[in-house]
């Protein structure tokens, strides 16, 4: 079970809802992924196009725990405001704190992320900050009372996969709260590696929504995350420099 604050989940996949080819493909991908947590963003609506369907209307949102992000925020103040707006919907009390510090890399601003997370913990939110892969920052966020830590694997939407396994493993080893690898996942094997490192979950979006067949990729991610988790729990063999025969040496001579 994945426990985040007062919530419990059997799926370890957190799925984003951005950039699917259409709502029907999105619904099918969400369904087949087995996810129980959906992320989304908060935006001004176009009041002159009120008739436009919204993605929420196409999903049975009672089946999911909703995780709004604070994407678009560049400061702690903006992130807190977006989080409060999302909570005012009455649909969620979780928030993915996302304070972007650099538009080219979309890497999080650690100082503003820390400030926003502190404020939101005090306000009673279930707080999941998207952070850089710094173990000391992760520990500080945990000390503040964050309910999960979400370090990036590589830049958002880059599909570069896990470029920092050492840093991620430091965070996983040193944090008591769940560590969810967020951003940069490209392939099922990337997700499996995150889980083999001991991550409690994986948050991804573009890897599925941008795939040639998003529904099939959603299913692949589900299996890879399950496989990676099983592999982690089973405990891998140590790596060695030289070979060790798996067949017995005894009784080899048939002469």
């Amino acid at each position, binding site marked *: 079970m994945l426990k985040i604050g007062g919530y419990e989940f059997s799926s370890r996949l957190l799925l984003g809802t*951005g950039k699917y080819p259409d709502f029907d493909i999105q619904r099918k991908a969400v369904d087949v992924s087995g996810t129980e947590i959906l992320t*989304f963003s908060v935006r001004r609506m176009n009041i002159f196009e009120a008739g436009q369907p919204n993605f929420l209307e196409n999903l049975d949102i009672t089946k999911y725990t909703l995780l709004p992000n604070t994407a678009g925020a560049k400061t702690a103040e903006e992130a807190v405001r977006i989080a409060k707006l999302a909570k005012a919907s009455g649909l969620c009390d979780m928030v993915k704190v996302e304070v972007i510090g650099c538009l080219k890399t979309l890497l999080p601003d650690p100082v503003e992320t820390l400030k926003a997370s502190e404020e939101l913990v005090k306000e009673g939110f279930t707080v999941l900050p998207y952070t850089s892969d710094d173990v000391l920052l992760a520990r500080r966020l945990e000390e503040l009372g964050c309910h999960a830590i979400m370090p990036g694997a590589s830049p958002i939407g880059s599909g570069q996969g896990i470029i920092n396994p050492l840093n991620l493993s430091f965070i996983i080893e040193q944090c008591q709260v769940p560590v969810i690898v967020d951003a940069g996942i490209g392939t099922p094997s990337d997700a499996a590696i995150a889980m083999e490192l001991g991550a409690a979950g994986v948050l991804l979006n*573009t890897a599925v929504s941008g795939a040639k067949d998003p529904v099939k990729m959603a299913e692949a991610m589900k299996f890879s995350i399950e496989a990676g988790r099983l592999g982690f729990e089973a405990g891998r063999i140590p790596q060695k420099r030289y070979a060790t025969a798996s067949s017995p040496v005894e009784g080899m001579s048939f002469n």
Partner: protein
Amino acid sequence: MKLVVNGERVVVPNTVETVTELLRHFELNQKVIIVELNAEIVGKEKHAETLISFGDKIELVHFVGGG
């Protein structure tokens, strides 16, 4: 009545007096929507009783796809 909704100057009929009526005017009453009136969030339960007046700055936000 003149208002600023989502940064745009709009004119609504004078019969629109509350947040609920404003949402109905824009045909948003069936939507998942969050209302901010002059930078203060107006909870859903307060929509019907919250009055709007000339020059108010109103933000109407909703949820969109994101990761």
